[in-house]
């Protein structure tokens, strides 16, 4: 297992795609944050056409509020890059035919899957830490610009929230990357796995947004069970439950929080549902790898 893990680490760290995807993510994050910082200086008109006394974006871009977005960037936007990289890591073994030399000396197939899963989880951490660091840096810049100083007192009070935020973001992303890995092994194709999981994520994010609008209409009707099922079953609903806790932790009392759906948080339930999904996808990958392996690359 140690050899397989070392080989997977070597492959992923030397693969240009790993770093290109991270670079793109950081660029997207920097662009979005800089735009938000710029908007935070623009006086926004309220409903009565008078400028708002406080720009609601200020809390979002300055510390510690900026940390909410920084911590949740990977499970929201970063997940797309991670899905592509995870699907590619598993799928190209079949496309390039490298699965043949990998398995030819009797390497354990289940250990290979576990090594790949471990490395993709390591990738989440690899993407999470720099994005949070960049968010922190840009939050510090925005704080300096808005307040003339960088507030640091929150570090002593909120270090546990930061830690929990990292764990929640990691956990909310794990089932998606495992799904990408499992489907790439099942389909023996990166493209098919990426397409399937990305399509699911997009449909789910749009669908969940629409559903949040419809939720009040379902409350106290005979159809309210639909909301309960969605809260329980959907991957995105449970991931949002976890990332929502981070948002609440860092934006409590801000103008932004007022716009968040006021669902009751069930962190343990959400964490367990995500764990169940992760287990199912891992089991799928372990079953899929057992099939016969042809000696010709699937791309040829």
């Amino acid at each position, binding site marked *: 297992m140690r050899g397989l893990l070392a080989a997977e680490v*070597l492959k992923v760290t030397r693969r240009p795609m790993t770093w290109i995807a991270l670079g793109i993510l950081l660029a997207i994050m920097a662009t979005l944050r800089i735009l938000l910082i710029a908007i935070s200086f623009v006086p926004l008109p309220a409903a009565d056409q008078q400028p708002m006394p406080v720009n609601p974006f200020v809390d979002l871009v300055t510390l510690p509020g900026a940390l909410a977005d920084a911590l949740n960037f990977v499970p929201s936007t970063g997940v797309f890059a991670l899905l592509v990289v995870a699907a590619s890591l598993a799928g190209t073994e079949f496309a390039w035919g490298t*699965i043949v*030399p*990998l398995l030819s*000396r*009797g390497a354990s197939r289940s250990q290979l899957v576990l090594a790949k899963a471990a490395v993709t989880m390591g990738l989440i951490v690899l993407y999470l830490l720099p994005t949070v660091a960049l968010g922190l840096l840009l939050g510090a810049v925005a704080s300096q610009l808005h307040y003339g100083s960088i507030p640091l007192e929150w570090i002593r009070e909120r270090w546990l929230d930061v830690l929990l935020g990292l764990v929640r973001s990691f956990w909310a992303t794990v089932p998606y990357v495992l799904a990408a890995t499992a489907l790439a092994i099942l389909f023996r194709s990166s493209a098919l796995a990426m397409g399937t999981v990305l399509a699911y994520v997009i449909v789910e994010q749009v669908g969940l947004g629409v559903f949040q609008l419809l939720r009040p209409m379902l409350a106290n009707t005979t159809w309210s069970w639909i909301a309960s099922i969605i809260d329980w079953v959907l991957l995105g609903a449970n991931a949002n439950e976890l990332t929502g806790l981070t948002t609440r932790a860092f934006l409590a009392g801000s103008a932004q929080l007022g716009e968040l759906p006021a669902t009751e948080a069930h962190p343990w339930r959400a964490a367990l549902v995500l764990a169940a999904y992760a287990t199912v996808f891992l089991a799928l990958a372990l079953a899929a790898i057992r099939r016969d392996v042809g000696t010709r690359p699937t791309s040829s």
Partner: protein
Amino acid sequence: MTESALLRVEGLTKRFGDRLAVDGISFSLQRGELVGLLGPNGAGKTTTISMIAGLIRPTAGRIFLLGRPLEEDRTTLRRVGLMPEVPSFYPYLNARQNLEVMARVYGADPGEIDGLLETVGLAEHAGRPFRTYSQGMRQMLSLANALLGDPELLLLDEPTNGLDPLGQQRVHQLLRDLVARGKTVLLSSHLLRDVQELCQRVMIIHRGKLIEDSPIERLLRPGELRVLVRTVADERAFILLSGPARPEWISSVDRHDDHLEVRLSPEHLPELSAFLVQHGLYLRELRPLEGDLVTAFFQLTSGTR
């Protein structure tokens, strides 16, 4: 079956849906043997190799590696080096890095990589990404990968595919050296002359069945011997050997421009010269014609024999 059998295959069968790819093949390889595996496209050679390498699960039959059944003990596969038909490596890694990845997976010593790259003639190009390699260089890297960890059995699927004559020569020499060191090689190839030049024994698979497994000598010199005959009077010799006085041990005689070709049982070769001399037909030349594997292969796989 003696303990010296490095590989023993019993009733190996593989079915893909309705198609029977390999049909009850049995054979064994002794240590130090270099055995050719021949067969037309789709005959089942690669499927057989894949089953031995543990990539494909047999539908029926058993494989014994180093005396142990493969389905019970897959650790013996660590002693088997596979060179697949298509060299497959990570395109963004160079030769050394690719071998480093595989060495970690195989539990081989990465210290042997430089030596192997030298052996296959890739030392100069070891720092170039695999994607920039020519077909021949890819083949050589695949061979180096098969040799990682000094395996006892080598399964080589078309090892000289895409190699220039120098590369082919290098592979031939390498295989001879390996066999001299006691390694066992199963060589699948479409290049029959490669097999004829290198192998001591040949197995021919046709439509999933093992239709021949014999020493190469027997294939090249089957029951009937072809002999070139030139005498002082070929026309008279032809009439004699094909006429009513023809000895029963001569099966046929063909007339060519400057010689005759006589087919007879090998043990009667001395009698042929005596018979001709008795009739005043002194010999200018009499020599057995070499059989070739191409002829034998076509005879076997076309069902004419």
